[in-house]
């Protein structure tokens, strides 16, 4: 562990402030609690909100997983995982099932989350109404009165113009029937995983200085209309490595002619399936963790 800094980098007073904000966030599902976000040694926009939430939550007996785009070994995920290994000496893992805290950018793992796990989302823009109303003073008033008609109008205009809702990620949701919330830029494919999840979901926006939460077993409804129900991305392909037909697939260009293949965005899910003998790239036993 690095010397000269407190456990998990933040000083205790800062942790107390963030912890108080987290508790209020859980007590008021979907409401964005303003907090005194600190300047972290990583840039704003690169996960400072998630890092502060994780730093306030993490203990020496936790096991931390960090993903970006579903992958454990993307550079920013590596950098954040190292930050906590260095400042908190905490155990890290790439396996979703072994993690007690999962910090993520842009994905929710495919593996079913369980009771007791905490997912920490990195949030760039927490305000769901921001593109429709840039002023904080206005959006705060709209949340106070649950005035969300403007969002329905926007989605309906999409349908009128394009025949469907043209939002692919960061798709707005309503939490516990009250607050409109941005789920962070996860693909809408992941939205159903938020609904009544047994895990606790915490959202941290460092630059915008907001923390919000979805408690376990809480209704999270993706906005839609009776005649245009919410739908998620679909592929007519399966993962070229593990054969999964139920996971979010990245489209990878493999040659100059524009040839492409589809692979799981969740690298742990894909590796686990291959360890179990699935797909064209199944790993023959004995199993060795490909991530090591």
């Amino acid at each position, binding site marked *: 562990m690095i010397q000269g800094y*407190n*456990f998990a980098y933040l000083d*205790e*007073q800062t*942790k*107390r*402030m963030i*912890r*108080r*904000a*987290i*508790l*209020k*966030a*859980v*007590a*008021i*599902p979907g*409401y964005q*609690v*303003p907090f005194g976000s600190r300047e972290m040694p990583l840039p704003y926009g690169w996960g400072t909100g998630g890092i502060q939430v994780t730093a*306030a*939550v*993490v*203990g*020496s007996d936790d096991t931390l997983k960090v993903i970006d785009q579903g992958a454990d070994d993307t550079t920013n995920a590596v950098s954040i995982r190292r930050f906590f290994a260095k400042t908190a000496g905490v155990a890290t893992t790439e396996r979703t099932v072994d993690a007690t805290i999962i910090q993520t950018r842009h994905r929710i793992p495919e593996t079913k989350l369980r009771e007791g796990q905490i997912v920490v989302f990195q949030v760039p823009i927490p305000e769901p109404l921001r593109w429709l109303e840039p002023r904080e003073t206005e959006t*705060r*008033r709209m*949340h*106070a*009165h649950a005035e969300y008609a403007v969002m329905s109008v926007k989605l309906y205009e999409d349908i009128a113009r394009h025949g469907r809702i043209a939002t692919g990620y960061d798709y707005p949701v309503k939490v*516990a029937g*009250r*607050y409109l919330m941005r789920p962070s830029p996860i693909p809408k494919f992941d939205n159903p995983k938020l609904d*009544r999840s*047994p895990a*606790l979901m915490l959202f941290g926006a460092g630059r915008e200085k907001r923390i919000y939460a979805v*408690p*376990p*077993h*809480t*209704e999270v409804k993706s906005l839609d209309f009776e005649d245009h129900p919410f739908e998620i991305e679909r592929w007519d392909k399966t993962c070229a490595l593990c054969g999964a037909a139920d996971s979010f697939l990245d489209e990878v260009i493999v040659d100059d002619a524009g040839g492409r293949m589809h692979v799981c965005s969740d690298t742990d899910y894909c590796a686990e399936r291959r360890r179990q003998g699935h797909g064209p790239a199944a790993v023959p036993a004995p199993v060795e963790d490909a991530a090591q």
Partner: protein
Amino acid sequence: MPLPEPGFADPVAESQRAFRALLDAIAHPGRIVDIPGPAGRPEGLSIAQSAIALALLDGDTPVWLAGPCASARPWIAFHTGAPAAPRPDGARFAFAEAGELPAPGAFDLGTDAYPDRSTTLIIETPGLAAGGNALLSGPGIAGTTRATLPLPRAFFAARAELAELFPRGLDLVLTDGARALALPRGTRVEGA
């Protein structure tokens, strides 16, 4: 004047553990969690109450100590620096005992724009138990759950009246010795 009883021996680790237990409780209303406290606890507060105070209070959190909890004032001032709130509705945190309960409406319920700026009330409630007459539902609970909440019926009636003010509201933590259970503002309680 004698020195106040000691606080956490390892403030960093013990604060984290107390916070996590409380987070678990608030994320799962009705669930009983263990909140281990400091070695020496002050007169007026239970073990869990002392641990919550040490973990969450500081100079930025005015605190209200109701009834017999007031004896813990010097201990709280010494260990946390939390100022005494002049009135219950000026407090971020309030500590009380089941025997001498202030009305829920006496506290800061926050505003519609800032519902987080509300009091968290921590009540020592002997006899707290999982299972029992009280039927709880709401966010954090899969369906419903049951608990024994030995507080006056009138208190829950007054709390229920606050429900229509949501998102304004009062977040409750009930403690019994080193155990705690949370009733955030969104939890419906029937039959208590």
